[in-house]
């Protein structure tokens, strides 16, 4: 007769154990040491790749036969659009990690990511507007692509505001994480808005099934610029997260010192 496994007393209400690789960086000291080694290389790589990419985009790539020199805005606008969407996916993943596994750095990462994401999305909207005026004859239209990116911008702003709106950082982080996860529904709307609705914005020309609808003389500098901006984005977010970890440590030390002094002063 098979032995019946013992029934565990009570339900396990603890958070699920995170994957080992995630758990390694739950220790802020280890994160600071690892990120301190990576950050200088990441910053140098971002500067080098952007120098090459922007020089290629501004001086070496050809003008468009219809748009002329204005097409050079694409080398900034498109990477910003990709970063706005990819960064938001990163925000959602960090939020899920914080909610499910209670990873102590995921909250801080999300909190530091959202202002950078908001700036990048604002750049996407601004450069799109600067491109649209000479090409479409207008700075703005309420078409599906532009409107859904504006909603994405408000989601970034909302997350940044919400995580800072509470006296208890944990409550703010939790509310922000829920908002970030709900906002993910906007990403496919942004991506497929040009296919689902009739928009003034052009359909996808690089990230589409089949070959990109762009000559390699423009595609290669675009990909180099996208890589450079992605490295710069990662470097900025990593530097902000490092600073936030150190600031949290400072608050804890100052609180402990105040308690010590308060305890010493009490008769």
């Amino acid at each position: 007769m098979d032995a019946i496994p013992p029934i565990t007393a009570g339900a396990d209400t603890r958070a699920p154990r995170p994957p080992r690789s995630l758990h390694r960086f739950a220790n802020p000291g280890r994160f600071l040491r690892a990120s301190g080694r990576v950050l200088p290389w990441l910053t140098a790589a971002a500067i080098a790749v952007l120098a090459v990419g922007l020089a290629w985009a501004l001086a070496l790539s050809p003008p468009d036969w219809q748009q002329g020199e204005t097409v050079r805005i694409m080398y900034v606008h498109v990477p910003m659009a990709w970063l706005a969407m990819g960064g938001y996916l990163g925000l959602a993943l960090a939020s899920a990690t914080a909610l499910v596994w209670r990873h102590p750095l995921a909250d801080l990462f999300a909190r530091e990511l959202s202002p950078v994401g908001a700036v990048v999305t604002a750049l996407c909207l601004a450069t799109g507007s600067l491109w649209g005026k000479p090409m479409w004859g207008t700075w703005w239209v309420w078409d599906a692509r532009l409107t859904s990116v504006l909603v994405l911008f408000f989601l970034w702003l909302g997350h940044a505001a919400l995580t800072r709106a509470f006296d208890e950082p944990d409550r703010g982080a939790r509310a922000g994480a829920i908002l970030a996860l709900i906002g993910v529904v906007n990403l496919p709307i942004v991506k497929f808005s040009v296919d689902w609705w009739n928009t003034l914005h052009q359909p996808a020309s690089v990230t589409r099934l089949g070959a990109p609808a762009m000559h390699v003389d423009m595609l290669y500098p675009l990909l180099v610029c996208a890589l450079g901006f992605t490295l710069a984005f990662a470097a900025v977010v990593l530097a902000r997260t490092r600073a936030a970890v150190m600031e949290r440590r400072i608050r804890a030390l100052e609180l402990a010192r105040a308690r010590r002094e308060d305890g010493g002063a009490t008769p």
Partner: protein
Amino acid sequence: MTQHWAHVAVSYALAALAFGGLGLGAWMRHRAARRRLAVLDPRASAARDGSGGDGTA
């Protein structure tokens, strides 16, 4: 300069200003936090800077 080049220049300048500002802001926060930590917890700051140890757990 044509109007088109002006739009291109403004786009690149906005990107440079935004990323430069974000990078500078992060660097200044990091430097201020590092200095404050060096005052509050010199042993852990020294450990974080190189010789191991875990100052921020």
